[in-house]
């Protein structure tokens, strides 16, 4: 029997069974949950599409595929499949808000997965809070996270705060300076957009407090097409440490330019995109020693297994990014475990369980404190083809950073 016919036969049988059953079983049982409806609005188009396509969408799809292959989400003593309703938020806060209203009021979904990026997560926060849906913001970095977690008790901020990101980077630099591996001079550039502004604003006082000499500190606008002048000027200053709080296209462009100009500081750190498979694909052996935001415990069996499953599931065998991808997948595992422990679609109880429970995920055991995880990876480094977390050094699986960064090779 072909799979389509088989499906039809199963559907028919189920339909008959339901009709027969309707006469005998009580109304409430007939209305029982036959699926868990999961909705999301994600940036399929617009400026956020690049990030969503790497970090969010493949993980949402992998999770749904795996859960349904295992029979679905366990509610009480039976398993029900996940049914997905999705929209394109076109990278716009208004569209995201509209789509979410629709998911809640018209599609009546049971749970909602978050959009990609800090801006959109902040935009949909109030809607999810008002409607009482859990909001697992797995791709947002904001200094207001602790405050937001208090204001919206349904929201969980899995990537932490930018102040923490900058602080951890500076702590690492202090440690490296203490070991005599780097000197005092730092050059910093940042993109004039949410993430770049936040991180550089947090890094400036942290660097000053640690008595680093900030030799260069400039921002550049989104859409800058040639970062050559910046890299050349920084190169002339010959800093020990170079920090770029950049977005994926400029992370690539700055690194390309640094390689071409032969700018090879002891610490070379770039922003979002460094942990992307694109980075490794483009720079190959030249990625070695490059530091960037994020990281994961690359040696853990759970991560290795996740990497293999992601590659097998995603289009063209795409790899996940080495930071928020695994966190995103972990947040979905947490959602599933919370629903299964509650045993029914009771959103308030699920939120409660997320706040208090402990979860087994691909990134290890996670337990929220004040709606935020207690462990983050803030600095990673490409070492032998894998982007390992190097700071905070206290995290399980942290690697020693390789310093100084090896010289760029001719490609």
């Amino acid at each position, binding site marked *: 029997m072909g799979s389509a016919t088989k499906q039809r036969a199963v559907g028919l049988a189920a339909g008959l069974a339901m009709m027969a059953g309707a006469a005998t079983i009580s109304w409430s049982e007939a209305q029982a949950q036959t699926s868990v409806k999961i909705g999301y609005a994600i940036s*399929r188009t617009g400026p956020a599409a*690049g990030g*969503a396509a*790497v970090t969010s969408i493949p993980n949402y799809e992998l999770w749904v595929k795996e859960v349904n292959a295992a029979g679905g989400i366990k509610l009480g003593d039976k398993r029900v499949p996940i049914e997905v309703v999705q929209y394109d938020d076109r990278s716009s806060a208004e569209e995201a808000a509209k789509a979410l209203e629709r998911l809640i009021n018209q599609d009546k979904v049971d749970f909602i997965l978050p959009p990609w990026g800090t801006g959109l997560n902040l935009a949909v926060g109030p809607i999810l809070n008002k409607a009482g849906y859990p909001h697992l913001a797995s791709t947002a970095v904001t200094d207001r996270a602790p405050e937001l977690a208090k204001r919206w008790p349904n929201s969980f901020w899995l990537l932490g705060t930018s102040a923490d990101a900058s602080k951890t980077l500076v702590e690492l630099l202090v440690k490296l300076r203490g070991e005599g591996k780097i000197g005092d001079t730092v050059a910093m550039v940042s993109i004039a957009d949410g993430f770049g502004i936040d991180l550089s604003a947090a890094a400036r006082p942290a660097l000053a407090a640690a008595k680093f000499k900030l030799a260069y500190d*400039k921002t550049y606008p989104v859409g*800058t097409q040639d970062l050559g*002048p910046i890299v*050349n000027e920084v190169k002339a200053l010959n800093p020990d440490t170079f920090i770029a709080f950049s977005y994926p296209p400029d992370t690539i462009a700055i690194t390309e330019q640094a390689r071409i100009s032969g700018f090879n500081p002891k610490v070379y750190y770039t922003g979002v995109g460094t942990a992307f498979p*694109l980075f490794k694909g483009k720079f190959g052996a030249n990625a070695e020693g490059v530091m960037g935001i994020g990281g994961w415990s690359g040696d853990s069996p759970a991560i290795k297994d996740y990497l293999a499953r992601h590659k097998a599931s995603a289009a063209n065998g795409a790899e996940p990014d080495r930071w928020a991808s695994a966190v995103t997948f972990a947040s979905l595992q947490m959602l599933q475990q919370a629903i299964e422990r509650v045993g029914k679609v009771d959103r308030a109880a699920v939120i409660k369980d997320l706040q208090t429970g402990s979860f087994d995920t691909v990134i290890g055991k996670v337990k929220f404190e004040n709606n935020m995880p207690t462990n983050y990876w803030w600095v990673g480094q490409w070492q032998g083809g894998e982007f390992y977390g190097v700071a905070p050094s206290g995290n399980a699986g942290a690697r020693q950073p390789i310093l100084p960064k090896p010289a760029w090779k001719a490609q």
Partner: protein
Amino acid sequence: MTNALLTGLVLGGMYALIAMGLTLQYGVARIMNLAYGEFLIGSAFASYLLFTGWAVNPLVGLVVVVPVSFVVSLLLYKIFLTPLVRRARTRDALEVDSILATFGLMFIVQGTLLTMFGGAYFSYSFLAIPVTLVGEVLAMNRLVAFALAVVLGTVLYLILTRTRIGTSIRAVAVDPNVAPLVAINVPQLSALAFAVGGALVAAAGVLISMFLTFSATSGVVFTMKALIVVVMGGIGNLMGCLVAGVLLGLSEALVATYIDPGLTIAVNFALFLGVLLVKPAGIFGRARQ
């Protein structure tokens, strides 16, 4: 100083290259092609596929992508845009209609690219090797793109100014109402100009894909840039296109080096506004009677 000048010149060449096709499509055929950037990205993807899938050198890829884009643009004009041209009573009306039609086209092309490639960023390395020029280090791929932009610009300029067909094209750009009086076939030349514009944007897309990271949705940035260069240089004027492109590139590099990289886009727009205030028709544009 040398470095800023060289970087600015190379960047300016890239801007001129991006805008050359649009100046023909908009200036001669009067089609305000809002899907222009999408065609650029489409060619970038074609080049990416050729390079990563079959290891075809992007410079060789030009030989494939450019003629294909010429034919596609020609068909597009003949099938999709000719009804608009026939219907439009004046050229201004055609401009408005073409804006609406190509706005829709933009979504079709973008949607197709999104289904094929997804929203992720793409980038590959080709000729990303340092070259020393007058003591300054530049990327080989940018220099090659610049050199080809110069070659394409020169050839096009010579064709437009030295050949009979080029003179006719310029006549259409200047006054399409009078051109038929001297036996110029305006519809045919418009189609030709549109198709050559399509070939040029494909060349730009292939060359740019060698050094810029792109995604299926990044076309609009290029449409904007091309539009600024075209309007600033004088619509339909190739020389204006080159001058405006280089001006923008130089100002960007000089401002980034000597003042603040944060101001580059502001200075670009200030320059644009400044030119339009002094010469509303653009640097080389002629005011309409």
